[in-house]
């Protein structure tokens, strides 16, 4: 069995967020490409921050969980592999955990308000795939996880 592979890119989202502006706009000029990169990374980090805050897991990239676990699509090609893989870790302590709580369906979590980000779309598809009969009732805030 392959050992789980992690990225530490999202380990400390607060620090990363605070450095983001300097990273993308060192001279203060906001080019189109730099702005796009900035917004993408900012959206990911905010998603990780919220996951860390609530102690939930979700995708922040096509093959990366918010805890840093990376899926190799060649080894695990199933769309819901992220839910089945053992090797998820605590966002803060980085210790392996015995069970994971996954976020529910999302509505424009990662990107601009009126567009559905591909990762959001994939995550919603995964939730439908893994929980085919799950029903999320409208309960107001805080009951959509």
């Amino acid at each position: 069995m392959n050992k789980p592979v992690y990225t530490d890119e999202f380990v400390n989202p607060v620090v990363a967020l605070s450095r983001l502006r300097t990273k993308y706009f060192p001279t203060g000029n906001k080019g189109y490409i730099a702005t796009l990169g900035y917004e993408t990374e900012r959206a990911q980090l905010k998603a990780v921050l919220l996951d860390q805050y609530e102690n939930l897991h979700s995708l922040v990239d096509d093959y990366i969980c918010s805890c840093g676990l990376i899926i190799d699509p060649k080894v695990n090609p199933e769309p819901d592999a992220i839910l089945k893989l053992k090797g998820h870790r605590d966002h803060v302590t980085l210790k392996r955990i015995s069970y994971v709580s996954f976020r529910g369906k999302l509505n424009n979590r990662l990107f601009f308000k009126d567009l559905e980000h591909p990762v959001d779309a994939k995550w919603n598809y995964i939730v439908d795939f893994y929980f085919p009969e799950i029903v999320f009732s409208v309960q107001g805030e805080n009951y959509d996880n």
Partner: protein
Amino acid sequence: MGLIAPRDQAKSLKKGALLMSEEINNQEPGMLPVFTMKTQKQLNVTAKEGSKPNFVLDPETYYCPWYHPGHNFHWIPIFNHSQPRIPIEARWLEGKAFEVVVEGKTAVWYHHRPERLKQAISKAQPGDIKATVGRPWIFISTGDGAYAFNCDEEPIKDCPTKNDSEVSKNE
């Protein structure tokens, strides 16, 4: 964020209930993979037949967005990791602390809503208070299901307020 995934077979469910395929929870046939976030209650097969609960706790109006140990329960651990359950004894100590006796060993567990857990313990029949083996998860049977209480063996942090959550989201 309101999310709706309507399914024909789930129309009869009460508002707020979560339904999953029944094969997932096959270790204890009595319990259904139906967990209501609002009341933090898992239903069993008798609920399907319309049985009444022995007691009802006040509806959960408390705000806490956390799924850390000692706070809200998430349905995945309940459906997939909460069996087997064994009878325990539990009593309130102080604050958020409860003294539990599991298989003859005494421990202190903490829960973010001590009033609710106290209320459930006081209304429960002897033998109705159970815990998952090896985990600080309390289930208090009500006849048609069980209220679930996610506890922690370490003292827990105070729950955030709504303002704290907004700060975190907008950081």
